[in-house]
């Protein structure tokens, strides 16, 4: 083993196609289309390289990863290469046949996302009628197959009052792990920020609920809790540091240190169609740009937390200050910290309408419809 320590995880966005239209989707505003996606053979080659350079866990995401009909084949190859396989899915297409195929392929874990506990509100947020009922059925299938279940609730001002019921639902579904994850404000979430950002009082009440549930469920169910950066004192250790732990690959094969990195100007991200993962990880200029601490400005450079939070999030620094190399404004030591309070002040009494995540929804022209096969 030479060079920088190997990546722990590979996040593969198999496709940007998805039957849901969640207004906080982590995909970029400019979605990649089906015709650009890597082929089955190309993905298999990427997994071989990943295992060789020391990747341990493979996270299949999207879009909706089950929109790729070759998903079981991809899982089988990854599992055979010794990778720990995880699927992050909305579950609406997870029928008995697909579940059996995934089990046969050696899937290790499935994370199922929910939009709410109230079916009507959940379906409204997802922009898909009947989604919630399908998710409940998917959860039962995952448990019946003997797999551990993680349920993920994305929390925001239009469902935050239901967090106690979310935890109860997760318990009822037999989840080993629950994520109460406040929306992260990038891409679609950033565009819909005023419609999603909760108040400080709502956040504090939720934090108390989660802390009490953690104590009660200790040893039975793990609850991961993510707060919105807008109310944080210190930034999150985004991706565990730029290009330190993860490689994210877009449907068309673009390799990036995180899924939102495309929002940063002046970067040319390498393609796995042209460059090996080993070369990308060790030498690509985009990966080296913010790796470690040398790039850091003050107050990060002399901060004793610089190797804990790694300066926070580059994409957030750019989105809120126009400069990706500044300290993440989430830190209350950051010179730009006041922008967080300003954003909170802008959220207004009533949430505005969602801009749903659709192909073409971010274009000036009328939306282009795109169907999922």
């Amino acid at each position, binding site marked *: *083993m030479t060079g920088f320590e*190997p990546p*722990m*995880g590979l996040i593969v966005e198999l496709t940007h196609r998805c039957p849901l239209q969640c207004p906080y989707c982590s995909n970029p505003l400019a979605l990649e289309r089906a015709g650009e996606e890597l082929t089955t053979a190309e993905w298999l080659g990427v997994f071989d390289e990943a295992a*060789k*350079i*020391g990747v*341990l*866990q493979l*996270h299949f995401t999207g879009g909706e990863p089950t929109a790729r009909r070759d998903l079981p084949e991809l899982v089988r190859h990854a599992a055979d290469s*010794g990778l*720990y396989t*995880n699927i992050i899915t909305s579950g609406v297409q997870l029928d008995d046949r697909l579940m059996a195929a995934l089990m046969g392929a050696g899937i*290790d*874990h499935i*994370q199922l996302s929910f939009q709410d506990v109230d079916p009507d509100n959940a379906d409204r947020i997802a922009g898909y009628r009947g989604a919630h009922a399908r998710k409940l059925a998917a959860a039962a299938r995952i448990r019946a197959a*003997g*797999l*551990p279940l*993680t349920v993920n609730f994305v929390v925001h001002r239009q469902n935050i009052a239901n967090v106690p019921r979310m935890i109860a639902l997760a318990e009822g579904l037999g989840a*080993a*792990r629950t994520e109460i994850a406040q929306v992260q404000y990038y891409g679609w979430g950033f565009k819909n920020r005023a419609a999603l950002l909760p108040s400080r009082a709502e956040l504090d009440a939720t934090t108390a609920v989660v802390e009490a549930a953690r104590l009660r469920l*200790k*040893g039975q*169910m*793990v609850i991961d809790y993510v707060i919105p950066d807008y109310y944080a004192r210190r930034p999150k250790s985004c991706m565990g540091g730029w290009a330190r732990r993860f490689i994210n690959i877009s449907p068309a094969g673009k390799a990036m240190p995180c899924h939102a990195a495309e929002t940063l100007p002046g970067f040319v991200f390498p393609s796995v169609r042209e460059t090996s993962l080993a070369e990308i990880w060790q030498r690509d200029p985009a990966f080296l740009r913010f790796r470690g601490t040398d790039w850091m400005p003050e107050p990060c450079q002399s901060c004793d937390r610089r190797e804990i939070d790694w300066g926070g999030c580059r994409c957030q620094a750019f989105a809120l200050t126009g400069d990706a190399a500044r300290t993440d404004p989430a830190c209350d030591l950051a010179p730009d910290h006041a922008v967080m309070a300003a954003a909170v002040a802008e959220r207004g009494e009533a949430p505005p309408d969602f801009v749903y995540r659709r192909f073409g929804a971010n274009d000036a022209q009328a939306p282009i419809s795109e169907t999922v096969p």
Partner: protein
Amino acid sequence: MTLADDTVPRFRPGVKFRFDPVRETWVVLAPERLFLPDEQAVEILKLIDGTRNLGAIADDLAARFSAPRDVIIADVAVMLGDLAEKGAIAL
């Protein structure tokens, strides 16, 4: 954490303990979690097979590492209790 000698620790479903040839180290792979146990923890985790109880694990370690059994059993309980809280081990 107090654990009885007859407690049988198990890896929870979806948790894998394996040797990583690239890093030349043992790793615990769990749902969206990953642990790099230290040498002492590795020796304990290698003895978890779903049938051995805590007492048997402590006997084995006491014989090989010439440390008092009660010290070992306390160390084992702390390490396993920590991994149980993180969702990797069932006790």
